[in-house]
């Protein structure tokens, strides 16, 4: 994938497909230690140990429409290409946490990409789900909790185009401030 944001979207969709009601997205940029870490944690149906072990194998999927899984092996390959790795913790009935580490300065590392657009679109597709997004760059951080937005919107959902547009603008501005410090 051309952007890490697209891998993030794929992970978020996995969580939603696993029936998660709450998803936590973490992005940590640590320039000092040259690490970029992405993590997605959810309270979805989870996986047993045997499944977790097989899930990084491209020929494993529980879906019926296609015989190979793709998302997690692609992410693992992207991380490996730039000196990183993917870890999965999961427990049936409890949830799943996927973390991916990348060498931040590695030339093979895809750019983070358009995260604001990505999250606006994820939320538009899953209006009932709570997303808590934390992004850290060195000592500074940003937190976005979709419940705070929902509380103001009342009956209007994240799938309303005006709301999607606002989410995109709000996060773009937040990230810009975060990056410039």
């Amino acid at each position, binding site marked *: *994938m051309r952007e890490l944001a*697209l891998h993030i*979207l*794929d992970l978020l*969709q996995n969580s939603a*497909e696993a029936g998660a009601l709450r998803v936590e997205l973490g992005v940590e940029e640590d320039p000092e230690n040259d690490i970029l870490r992405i993590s997605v944690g959810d309270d979805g149906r989870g996986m047993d140990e045997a499944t977790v072990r097989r899930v990084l194998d491209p020929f494993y999927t529980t*879906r019926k*429409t*296609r015989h190979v899984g*793709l*998302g997690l092996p*692609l992410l693992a390959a992207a991380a490996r290409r730039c000196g990183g790795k993917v870890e999965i913790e999961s427990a049936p009935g409890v949830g799943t946490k996927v973390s991916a580490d990348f060498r931040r300065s590695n030339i093979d590392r895809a750019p983070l990409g358009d995260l604001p*657009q*990505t999250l*606006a*679109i994820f939320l*538009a*597709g*899953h209006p009932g789900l709570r997303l808590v997004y934390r992004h850290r760059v060195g000592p500074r951080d940003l937190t976005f909790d979709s419940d*705070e*937005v929902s509380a*103001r*919107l*009342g*009956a*209007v959902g994240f*799938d*309303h*185009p*005006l*709301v*999607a*547009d*606002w989410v995109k*603008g*709000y996060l773009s*501005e*937040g990230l810009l401030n975060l990056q410039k410090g």
Partner: protein
Amino acid sequence: MKSLKELDQIREKALEMTRVRQGQGLVKIVVGLGTCGIAAGARDVMAAILDELSKRGLTSVTVSQTGCVGLCDQEPLVDVIKAGEPRVTYGRVTPEVARKIIAQHVINHQVLGEWVIATKEA
């Protein structure tokens, strides 16, 4: 500075748009956002659709997402479902094609034949 306070205005505007909805037939659009769809550009297709709807003030259209439906080599996939009409599936949709789907199919009832990969009677 953008703030959560702006949401109060957005809520009112959105509710107002919904009030003028009556008279327009409801349309459902479904975008495939599984791994293959995402890798093929579905995020930007969905963004173009939402943008076009907001520019045109169309509130009679709902947009939802689906995962892999097994047509991975045809992604990004966009389905248009209008009451009483066959369900139309478009394949290899780009953001530009997505905007045309809104202008021609959703608004003017003209299916974009060259991009259709399947139709299914309602």
